[in-house]
């Protein structure tokens, strides 16, 4: 499988993501400059975490107007697989590849911690190695992770199985205390209608080696490999 990792000015999880795919998954991977539009030969493109263009204007906005993001929109429209992690998730919502918006955390603080997540839909290209209701432990690190979407759209997303991950406690309970940022209905990760675009605030690349304390991020990365094979 051929992965491409987008690199915008200010991306800072690009090389971490690249290294996990190269050294842990042992798959073909390249970094792609934000000015490039040559992406047709990839099977999956990952928009990594960081602070693209300094998060000026709104997180992800300036990155969403670059040549690379334009090419990623066409790629996704043709069914190509796209994953946005943290700032990558913000870019995907600003590019309208995913519904909703990410607002500042409800408490106004940057939050960095290990977080439990409940898999709400295990029948997607990004979660097929999980079981429904499985609890994953994956770190989060963000200031603007407060997912918001209007009620009508949210209902449609729920009916269509687009809510993929929710913040929960260690037992899988979806509680207010387990919600690190105020996201509507504890949402941590969503997909588009066709299920080929996935955005999530947690960092699976930071949870892909035992030395990091959790390998649960591999469930997500291995799901996309399984789907492709």
């Amino acid at each position, binding site marked *: 499988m051929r992965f491409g990792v987008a690199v915008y000015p200010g991306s800072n999880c690009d090389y971490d993501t690249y290294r996990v795919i190269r050294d842990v998954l042992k798959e073909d991977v390249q970094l792609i400059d934000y000015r490039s539009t040559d992406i047709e030969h990839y099977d999956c493109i990952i928009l990594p975490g960081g602070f693209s263009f300094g998060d000026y*204007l*709104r997180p992800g*906005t300036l990155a969403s*107007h670059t040549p690379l993001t334009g090419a990623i929109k066409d790629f996704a429209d043709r069914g190509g697989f796209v994953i946005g992690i943290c700032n990558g998730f913000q870019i995907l919502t*600003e590019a309208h590849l995913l519904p*909703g*918006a990410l*607002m*500042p*955390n*409800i*408490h*106004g603080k940057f939050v960095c911690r290990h977080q439990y997540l409940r898999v709400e839909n295990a029948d997607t290209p990004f979660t097929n190695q999980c079981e429904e209701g499985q609890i994953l432990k994956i770190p989060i690190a963000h200031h603007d992770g*407060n997912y*918001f*979407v*209007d009620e009508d759209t949210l209902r449609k997303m729920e009916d269509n199985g687009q809510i993929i991950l929710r913040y929960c406690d260690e037992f899988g309970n979806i509680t207010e205390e387990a919600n690190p940022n*105020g996201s509507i209905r504890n949402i941590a990760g969503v997909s588009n209608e066709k299920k080929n675009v996935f955005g999530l605030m947690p960092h699976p690349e930071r949870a892909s080696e035992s030395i990091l304390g959790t390998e649960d991020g591999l469930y997500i990365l291995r799901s996309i490999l399984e789907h492709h094979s």
Partner: protein
Amino acid sequence: MLIKFFIKPRKGVLDPQGRAVSENLRSLGFNNVKDVKVGKYIEVYVEENDREKAVEQAKEMAKKALVNDLIEDYQFEVVED
């Protein structure tokens, strides 16, 4: 022409900055402060003499980049620079 954009969080959308500033003002003794919204002010200078064209352009800029209408409201005014 100069386009002045005033952008603020939509009503009902939480504004942690506004809340923090509001609490701070009250702690300074401004006890009648009810609420504070912290927004953004953006100046865009365009080489355009036709005011109507500048207004149309301002709306497009807001829609395509400057404002996320899911979470933000905005106003703008066009003035001679």
